[in-house]
């Protein structure tokens, strides 16, 4: 059978994973605010109401706690719900349900219950969404035992990882970045599941490893191109799943390059990158030839003014500068 390929945007890839699961499996359904007729604030679920009907593409009232709690309940009773939280900033309102219930029920019931819930959420900076609609909050969830955290950076990864998240028997918090929705990639019609907990080498290199997540993956690739002009060979590792983390892939890369930069859009302080930096110094100390560099947003509420927002969040320039520092040629 000849394989047909289609160009998918990241947004379409997310939608395709949900739709394919819903076609295959009546237990899968999606709910969230304005996701039915309106197609969601970022139009990810656009058209799904027409295909699957209002019972399976459900609008929810503006209560993230109730929405998430309903998802947990359905999951414990055997469904595989997908809950969309409009912006990841609003995960704060569902925190109690996620941290104390979704993450804990399987453990507290001695394995009698499971919570195969996928909480999709979107956000991130770069569009002047200000301090309450553009934060990156994945770092708050990677520290909760019992939750899995996924953050894809390409259409292929988004589709394959969302599929695996839906079919994982644990609660997965699935982060999507608004700046990535229009990224395009040719994908086969046939969905290729990508296992959780496996990193991807986005670019192979010799001199320095950049561990990047979300939008910092394409930014790191651009920085790597620039560094290449200076004769610096950069390897870019995208963990894709932040929890559980593919430690060995990161360590293997750092043992090869002896230098490490960690880059994410969330604030640098106490971020996911701090955990990676700790991992690297714990398990690859004798391979390090330079301190681990961290690239992240400055420790400030995200500014509304575009110029200030640009100054606050990291992009390729900051990754490039960090690469140069680790090789000692700033």
């Amino acid at each position, binding site marked *: 059978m000849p394989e047909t390929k289609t160009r998918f945007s990241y947004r379409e890839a997310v939608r395709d994973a949900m739709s394919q699961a819903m076609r295959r499996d009546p237990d899968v359904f999606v709910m969230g605010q304005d996701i039915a007729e309106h197609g969601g604030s970022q139009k990810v679920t656009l058209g799904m109401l027409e295909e699957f009907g209002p019972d399976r593409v459900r609008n929810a009232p503006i209560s993230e706690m109730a929405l998430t709690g309903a998802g947990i309940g359905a999951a414990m009773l055997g469904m595989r719900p997908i809950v969309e939280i409009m912006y990841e900033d609003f995960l704060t309102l569902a925190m109690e349900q996620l941290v104390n219930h979704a993450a804990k029920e399987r453990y507290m019931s001695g394995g009698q219950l499971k919570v195969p819930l996928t909480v999709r959420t979107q956000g991130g900076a770069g569009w002047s969404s200000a301090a309450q609609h553009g934060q990156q909050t994945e770092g708050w969830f990677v520290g909760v035992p019992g939750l899995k955290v996924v953050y894809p950076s390409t259409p292929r990864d988004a589709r394959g990882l969302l599929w695996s998240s839906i079919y994982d028997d644990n609660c997965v918090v699935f982060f999507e970045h608004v700046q990535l929705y229009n990224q395009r990639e040719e994908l086969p019609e046939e969905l290729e599941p990508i296992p959780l907990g496996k990193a991807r080498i986005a670019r192979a290199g010799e001199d320095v490893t950049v561990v990047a997540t979300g939008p910092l993956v394409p930014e790191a690739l651009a920085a790597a191109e620039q560094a290449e002009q200076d004769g610096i060979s950069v390897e870019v590792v995208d963990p894709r799943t932040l929890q559980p983390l593919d430690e060995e892939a990161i360590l293997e890369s750092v043992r090869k390059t*002896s230098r490490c930069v960690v880059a994410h859009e969330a604030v640098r302080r106490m971020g996911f990158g701090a955990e990676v930096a700790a991992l690297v110094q714990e398990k690859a*100390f*004798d*391979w*390090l*030839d*330079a301190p681990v560099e961290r690239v992240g947003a400055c420790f400030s509420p995200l500014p509304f003014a575009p110029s200030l927002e640009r100054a606050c969040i990291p992009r390729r320039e900051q990754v490039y500068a960090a690469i140069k*520092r680790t090789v*000692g040629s*700033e």
Partner: protein
Amino acid sequence: MPSEIKLPRLGQGMESGVVTKWLKSEGQAVAKGEPLYELDTDKVTQEVESPLSGVLLRIVLAEGEAPVGTTIAYVGEEGEQVPEAAARTTPVKPEPEPEPEPETKPEPAFEPVALRPAASLDGAEPDGRTKASPLARRLARERGLDLARMAGSGPEGRIVAEDVKRAVSAMAAPSASAVGAAGAPGQVERIPLTNVRRTIARRLTEAWQAPAFQLTSSADMSEVLEMRARLRERAQPGERPASVADFLTRACAQALIRYPGVNALWLANAIEIHHSVDIGIATATDRGLIVPVLRGCERRSLSELAEARRDLVSRTLDGTIGLEELEGGTFTISNLGTFDVEQFVAVLNPPQVAIIAAGAIVERPVARAGEVAIAPVLTLTLTCDHRAVDGSVAAEFLAAAKGFLEEPGLML
């Protein structure tokens, strides 16, 4: 975090320095390697380069004297806060050297003069701590190299893996630029500096700052050559008699004992006269110039000297010489006689105050008892550091050495 700029140790024995002038003001950007301030030491006044790039956040010691290791300024990123507690000048207590790896036995490294304290400007910490990356430490440990003898090329002088690899390749594959490598006309070959080459460059540049003077004298070597010929005749099979170089070493040793002012070291705050004659033998190797030290020359007979010198030089050439044999000389002989050079001027080997340069023995017409005769003549040129040695002492020493060569019986 802003980085502390500490008063560096610019030479062995330097205890303190006087900041005389800042070349940058607070708030100004400074690039790594740019002159940052002027420092007056007991030896010299010199501009000291910034060890890193950034903004000069705070000058702690605007002017005046402070011990080595004192924080004199902070450099960091624009707007960074300088820790208040440390904002005033407080001499920093030297940290003890990190525990050396007990199982590590330093292999012979070819860095005869890579004395760390003097290397402050190219990487050593003024407090004596060795800053090295974990990888560099592991590589050095695996190869039995001593990091304390390496200069760091990383940020803030940190020794990085590249520095260790360079040191290793300097030992293992010294003559990468072998003669005869075919190159197209106009092609330029770029040879990265090895540690040995860096050290030679740094030390000789340092030596060049000394106010040096030269004295030249010629010795009639007829007697030495005759004596050597007799020694050869009487040599047992397998025995290798003394060479001209051994006679020269013996002559210098005996003259130095009589004029110890030339057998001395120039320190920052004192002149150190030595009563043991430890002569550095400048040796050309394919790794560059290396100066092993022949100790206690004044106590050795000519044949003992010959044997010891031969052993020392051959181990220097084949690279098995120990580091400790490359340090602590009190005088140096540089002999280009085998290269058919008639006379030349040698550059001082600090902190030694004198070095003697010997050319080839050449037959020359000489006046002898009113007659012109042909005699084998050796031209000696003595270079002295005038800060420690005056011309008359130098002249007396040179005359004594010449006398011993012309009448070798007097020195045996």
